[in-house]
């Protein structure tokens, strides 16, 4: 985790190099990169050391020191064969299905949310008709619907998917709707003057124009998907990271409980990092345009 955050500041430092004039040589550049990593990560190290010191001093079963957590994580999940990326069978059985449901749920929510959002954003009639309903559903805290989904789908992946999709679709839908409604009138006038067909207007004008807002919604939804993945696995699952966490808790294996928490934290960071990379690619034009305009 600390390496992933540390590589980010290093890249801009290199980009900014030509502006600094000349090529100051490899040594200086490496030195600066190391400095950048240190300036970013020293607090993380400090917190870890403090955590270790306090937990060792307190010696409480519920709060094991990070070193023990790391060992337990290694034993349980990361001591597998190289052929399965060092993941143990338990890790494969629980991490993979859970993350799979998270990504599938997110993808489903993205497709349905964007399609509905564009329809509602471009049709005043649909918007007026459905907006009150949407506002009501959006206001329901997603976990409150767990009992309903348990009845509808019983324990299993369908129930977890339903929880994730229903819970996270709102930021995507509402942001897409907002983006599709607020397309610059001159963008649309220009498209009409030059005779772009409706499908081409949608793909070439409306979606790109709404893309910054759609991506903002997708980002929020991704974070929510992780939350709902865990919640749904705590309630209605036979596998998954949340399920692992719960069984560990029942077995008083608090090193594994904390381990699962750390896995979830890392997972959230990795997902966000990957999302940021994709977003930067897709919305490169927006960053560029904004930088020049400011």
């Amino acid at each position, binding site marked *: 985790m600390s390496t992933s955050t540390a590589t980010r500041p290093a890249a801009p430092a290199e980009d900014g190099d030509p502006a600094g004039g000349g090529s100051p040589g490899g040594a200086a550049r490496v030195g600066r990169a190391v400095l950048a990593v240190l300036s970013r990560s020293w607090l993380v190290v400090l917190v870890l050391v403090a955590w270790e010191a306090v937990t060792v001093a307190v010696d409480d079963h519920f709060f094991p020191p990070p070193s023990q957590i790391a060992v337990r994580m290694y034993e349980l999940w990361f001591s597998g064969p190289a052929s399965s990326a060092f993941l143990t069978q338990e890790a494969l059985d629980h991490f993979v299905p859970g993350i799979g449901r998270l990504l599938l749920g997110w993808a489903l929510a993205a497709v349905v949310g964007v399609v509905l959002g564009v329809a509602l954003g471009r049709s005043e009639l649909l918007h007026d008709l459905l907006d009150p309903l949407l506002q009501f559903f959006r206001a329901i805290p997603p976990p409150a619907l767990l009992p309903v989904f348990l009845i509808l789908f019983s324990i299993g992946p369908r129930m977890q998917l339903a929880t994730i999709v229903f819970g996270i679709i709102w930021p995507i839908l509402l942001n897409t709707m907002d983006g599709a409604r607020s397309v610059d009138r001159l963008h649309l006038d220009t498209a009409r003057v*030059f*005779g772009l067909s409706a499908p081409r207007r949608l793909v070439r004008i409306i979606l790109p124009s709404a893309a910054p807002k759609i991506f903002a919604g997708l980002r929020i939804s991704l974070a929510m998907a992780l939350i709902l993945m865990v919640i749904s696995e705590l309630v209605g699952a036979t596998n998954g990271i949340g399920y692992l966490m719960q069984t560990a808790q029942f077995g008083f294996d608090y090193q594994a409980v904390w381990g699962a928490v750390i896995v979830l934290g890392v997972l959230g960071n990795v997902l966000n990092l990957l999302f940021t990379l994709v977003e930067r690619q897709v919305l490169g034009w*927006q960053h560029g345009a904004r930088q020049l305009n400011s």
Partner: protein
Amino acid sequence: MLEIVKLGHVYGTGPTAHQAIADINLEVAQGELVSLVGPSGCGKSTLLRCVAGLIQPTEGEVRLDGTPISGVPDNLAVVFQDYSRSLYPWLSVRDNVALPLSRKGAGRAEAREASERALGEVGLAGAGEKYPWQLSGGMQQRVSIARALAYTPSLLLLDEPFGALDAQTREDLEDLVLRLRTEHTMTILLITHDIDESVYVGDRVVVLGRNPGHIVADLPVVLEGPREQISTRATPEFVALRAQVAQLVREQINS
């Protein structure tokens, strides 16, 4: 050839109805360049939107090459004043120019080629890979002009195209329009609030009045020799016509 017959447009209905333009009659011959000049509130943009087929006028009609305009005609292009909003920031310059060409049945390679050619004509050869926001205002407006050219319209509408540009850039682009009209057979309608520009570029200057927008005068521009920014503007004919137009516009503002 463009014919505007008894054109009028009312926005809204009932007590809040607003008559933007009324009884506008105008003929523009094939290949002619007519400047429309008038004070703000003279219905310039309403007139433009009617001609472009973006709104259906409530009275009268617009005919392009004999056909009444009901939707957006496929032989008409517009260069809008606000280039930064009219060009699409997520498309490269080349794609901005090529985007409308599929309507003309152009394939990918063909559209790309036409795009490069049009960019070359406006002095932007080699800028195709760039994004509009990486270019200066004047260059962005050149991209808009290239997009219109590549579309090969028979009628080109210029909607205050140089209003947002500095004086030097404006003169360059005025000369660009003058050059392009000799190389293409387009009818051009230039909407502007710049009186000098209306005279310098136009074959005719049509002065619009307000409340509602109507035609006040239709003056031929008779200037000898090719137009040149400094010498043309110094000729007595230019000065006299410019003063006449300015006087007419002033009267409209005060009335």
